């Protein structure tokens, strides 16, 4: 380009208060994040240089069209160790085991092995409202950005399916943007018509992006309209109140006992792609492939693990009340009761939820028995529920009145309680 125009543009960009370079493009990025990224990139570069062998720079897999590679793999995920044995609902403490460079304490919660995957896969998970049957297709993408929109490119798309007791993964990788139509064409042949998608946050992120890419190339989207088990929702429901966040890697660590070793954080995926484009160096991209493959494997473990969590949330320190609410909504009362009863000794919310369920079932005696210990510890809702049962079910006005007095004492400002007490006193006076 002409020097004069370049100089003018640079000057104007500077004058207008923008940060230099393309930082202005970034969505909500602070200087701190940038320096952290740059540091990490330097790290990555150092690692790359220390191993600067040509093999490291080359990409695995085969080129199926100009700009498109496929990497196929079968079996265990790379760079990970899975700890723990089959848990089957028991709260068996696992042995301390060295995983990668880190050590995990004996008090870590139980974890799930991958053997659980195969037998469970054809069945519809209990947390899903829609029943669907078919082969599970695990899906995860890597993209040039997280903001969405037609400028966000899906440069890597991983699919995995259960075959026998193994997980077979296929990863499509763009090495040039112009390879996208060929990638989408190849992909379409690998999505069975009756496939059920399994992803982590794919409903909100991966699937809309994939749809946009197909629309841009005027292609039919093979994923459109497929049943989809997005594991983020059931994970969040069970663990939102327990974990600091519900990212996939948090679930891996806390539920599956997987610690990633030398994993390239997802935030570096865009940089890996631009590095590959600019320099042809695939070292970072190899690590993105590993990262993506690990995500696919984790999905397969996670769906099995969640089945067990939903069968016995207490054993996994999950939120039994939240899990049960979902099960009740899906008309799985038996499973819900089971989940709540197991959690009764330690989770107050579970006790409350079970009491509500009992009341709905007309089992007022059981409900009252559940509420009583809560009421003794000062739980207003429990006292109120007991008061209602005494007044309307047992017609024990004296007991109801005593409970109403307690309610007024607990929450003097609440007019509902005062009304209740006044009504009971009127009825008692009659």
């Amino acid at each position, binding site marked *: *380009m*002409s020097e004069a*125009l*370049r100089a*003018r*543009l640079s*000057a*104007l*960009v*500077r*004058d*207008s*208060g*923008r*940060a230099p*370079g*393309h930082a*202005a*493009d*970034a*969505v909500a990025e*602070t*200087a701190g994040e940038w320096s952290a990224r740059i540091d990490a990139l330097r790290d990555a570069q150092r690692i790359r240089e220390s191993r600067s062998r040509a093999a490291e720079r080359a990409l695995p897999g085969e080129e199926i069209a100009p*700009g498109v590679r496929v990497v196929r793999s079968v079996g265990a995920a790379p760079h990970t160790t899975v700890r723990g044995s089959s848990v089957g609902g028991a709260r068996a403490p696992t042995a301390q085991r060295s995983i990668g460079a880190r050590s995990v304490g004996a008090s870590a919660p139980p974890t799930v092995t991958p053997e659980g995957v195969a037998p469970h896969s054809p069945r519809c998970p209990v947390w899903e409202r829609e029943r669907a049957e078919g082969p599970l297709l695990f899906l995860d993408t890597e993209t*040039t*950005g*997280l*903001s*969405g*929109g*037609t*400028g966000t*490119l899906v440069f890597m798309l991983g699919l995995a399916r259960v075959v026998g007791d193994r997980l077979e993964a296929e990863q499509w990788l763009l090495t*040039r*943007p*112009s390879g996208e139509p060929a990638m989408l064409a190849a992909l379409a042949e690998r999505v069975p018509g009756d496939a059920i998608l399994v992803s982590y946050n794919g409903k909100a992120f991966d699937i*809309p992006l994939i*749809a*946009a890419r197909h*629309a*841009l190339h005027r292609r039919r989207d093979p994923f459109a309209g497929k049943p989809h088990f997005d594991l983020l929702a059931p994970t969040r429901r069970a663990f939102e109140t327990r974990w600091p966040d519900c990212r996939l890697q948090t679930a891996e660590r806390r539920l599956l006992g997987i610690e990633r070793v030398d994993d390239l954080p997802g935030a570096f995926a*865009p940089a890996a*792609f*631009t590095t590959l*484009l*600019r320099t042809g160096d695939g070292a970072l991209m190899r690590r993105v492939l590993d990262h993506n493959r690990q995500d696919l494997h984790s999905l397969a473990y996670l769906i099995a693990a969640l089945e067990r969590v939903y069968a016995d949330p207490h054993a996994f320190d999950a939120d039994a009340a939240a899990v049960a609410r979902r099960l009740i909504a899906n008309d799985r009362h038996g499973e819900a009761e089971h989940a709540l009863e197991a959690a009764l000794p330690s989770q107050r919310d579970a006790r409350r939820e079970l009491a509500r369920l009992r009341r709905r079932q007309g089992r007022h005696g059981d409900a009252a028995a559940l509420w009583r210990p809560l009421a003794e510890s000062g739980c207003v809702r429990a006292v109120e529920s007991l008061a209602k049962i005494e007044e309307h079910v047992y017609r024990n006005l004296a007991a109801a009145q005593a409970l109403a007095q307690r309610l007024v004492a607990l929450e003097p400002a609440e007019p509902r309680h005062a009304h209740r007490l006044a009504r009971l006193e009127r009825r008692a006076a009659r």
Partner: protein
Amino acid sequence: MAAPARIPVHPVVADEGFGLDEARVERLVERLKSRYCDRITGELSIAPREARHAPFPPELDPSLRVALARRGLTQLYTPQREAWDRIHDGEDIVVVTPTASGKTLCYNLTVLDAVRCGGAKALYLFPTKALAQDQVAEINELNRAGELGVRAYTFDGDSPGDARKAVRTRGDIVVSNPDMLHQAILPHHTKWAQFFESLRYVVIDEVHSYRGVFGSHVANVIRRLKRVCAFYGVAPRFVLCSATIGNPREHAEALLGCPVHAITESGAPSGGKHLLLWNPPVVNADLGIRASARSQSTRIARMAIKAGFKTIVFAQARLMVEILTKYLKDVFDHDPRKPARIHAYRGGYLPQERRATERALRAGEIDAVVTTSALELGVDIGSLDVCVLNGYPGSVSGTWQRLGRAGRRKRTALGVLVASSDPLDQYIVRHPEFFLGASPECARIAPDQLLILLDHIRCAAFELPFRAGERYGAIDPREFLSFLAEQGVVHEDAGQWHWIADSYPANAVSLRSVADGNFLVIDRTDGRQDVIAEVDYSGAAMTLYEGAIYMVQSKPWQVEKLDWVGRKAFVTRTTVDYYTDAIDYTRLKILERFDRSVVVPEPLEHVVGGASAPTAPRNIEATRVGAEAPPTGTSADSVHSVAAECAHGEVHLVRRVTGYKKIRYYTHENVGYGPITLPDQEMHTSALWWRLPQHVLEAAFATRWQALDGFLGAAYALHTVAVLRAMAEPRDLGKSVGSGDGDWSAVVDAHGRGSMRDANARELLPDTVRQFEPTVFLYDNHPGGTGFSAPLFAERETLVHEAAALIGECACRHGCPSCVGPILQGDEDAHHDARGAALRVLALFGSTRRAALEHDIPYVMRPPIAALAREAAALPERIAAPE
């Protein structure tokens, strides 16, 4: 709004209900004229106009015809029919019509017919959400009248996520705004694929508001829209609507980048109109102080309301709306048991409150409304009888739009423009022929301004890869794409430029400003963390310095901390009795002359002599000067050595904000001073300038001080008339006096005297400068320029003449805020006549000899004028932000 369609809703009976007839408006005019003839400086009468009708097109959808008939419409006005015919001939059109003349039917007729008969879809763009909602309501009324089944939805920032999908997939007509198109629709166009594939019409209403920076952005959003449409294989027709402006066709073509047919004849009937220009009386002849516009507006509105006329009062600022409303309510609404007769209406009120006032106005339930520009755009409020403008709205077309609020179909209406002491206002009322004879301003945009272009090429590359050889508008984007590739934003592969950056560029581009990097104003009062405002980058240094009083809805906050890098200002609520005004020094350095003319001033004819001496009294000769051919050669040099230069070109600007004044309300005393430490603001922009050679100055002025005062006064007056000419917002056009090489700048100091500062903002004495060649700059106040300076350069002679007239005809003695700017308290022995000095400078710039002779006032010593100084100090800063 389609007036004919409204007939059953607003029966003309409402007029007769008050038993009013034409004669009474005339009588009010007569009364005003007889009692206040000295205040009325100009008058205009516009004759009533008959309706011109045309039949419905024969091929019109029968159901639509039925729906219109049920709304009382059995024929069209001629422009509505012409619009139909032109659109059906495949032309893009712009329709120019006054308010309430059936403009919406110009597009709705075609669009509804195409939706009903051809399954077409349409995109409507309005500048505000309220107008979009009005439009959907109107279409739905028609829908109900004829069971048309047309689905019209608004799509704006308030649309909930689940509703958005329905809008995208089911909407026949999507009503949105340019900002949403830019940030939400185009970057996600694949989600809208169904909509785009059937998109046949794009309607853009109120295009007169898309001018300047905003308009330049909108033109680029339209380029991107056309690009996305082409991807889906459609080429929709564009229907634009505008209030009256000077160049509707040219403006529409600049926005669309293609030929446009203009329909400018209104077919709707209108009543006659009287317009009075009103200057408040002089209350202190010595000091030239006039009564306030507010007192006059209140008086006129009171007379009108008492006589039974529905009245609308426009104020420039929100604060003034409240004050005027209070004064009128004190007269008409003192009985709290009766419903209010006077309402206020302005931005900042809750939407339901505004809707209620609109309804009450349409129903004729209230007698007067006091408002800001919020009611200037096409919000439907029915029609009123009397319109009072408290202050000049800033443009001829804006004035006519507001005046258009008064005027019923068969009744004469009255408009009164009351001048404030603002220089623009005073110019207007003293030159009634300028305003009354002026064609409305031309709307100007600069869609190819480099930064704006770069922003939108970035957004366009995100939306669709650029193909080799593809053009963007009329531009070949290759060099921009190379630039973006160097930044790692796009990547060239197999003949296409692909977006590869991790970002969403539309979020970083605001249509309402050139620069991004807006500052957030965060309220930290009592541990809060609320964002109360956003200030664009260019305004931050002047408004958000630590210690500044920042006002939102006339409530004051004080800036406690400014995080320049993080683009945040932390403020707390305060109750001070002053506001603050930043002091800045702006130096400009001329980088390149695009065009230049030399002026041989008349009073100096004798100096010229020789071969280059002009035979004509004045010789203004434009010379094209390219960068590769700097002005060399004997004739240019010799002319330059004796003549004033007027030129336009590129400049480098450095602004340093050094401190601020605290100014007390009402008395406008200066009650304190605070220092400001901020990084220098720099930008490249375009400017036009006038300068004089040193020896000419030395011949014309006794001292350099006087010359400096003259330049500062001339700059003030030139800025006033340039803002008027360019249809600019005053803040979009900057002014500065300094040396052309950026070594020093001059400002009016706290004592009303010119003062020179060097590059470090240190005071400099004029006599110590080796080279003394002051230059007056008028510059585009945005990085890269906004396109004002070239058209202003073309009008340079007019500007100088009008500036001289502005000063020459001013009633003050030595200068005042209405002509050369505030003249503050000088020292006793200063030979200080800013008016005379400014006129002399303008004469050297080429104003006519006659003007110079008539108005050149000899330098005489005058006592300082304290009262005038106080009045003047209040003027540069408007207390509340105009809307």
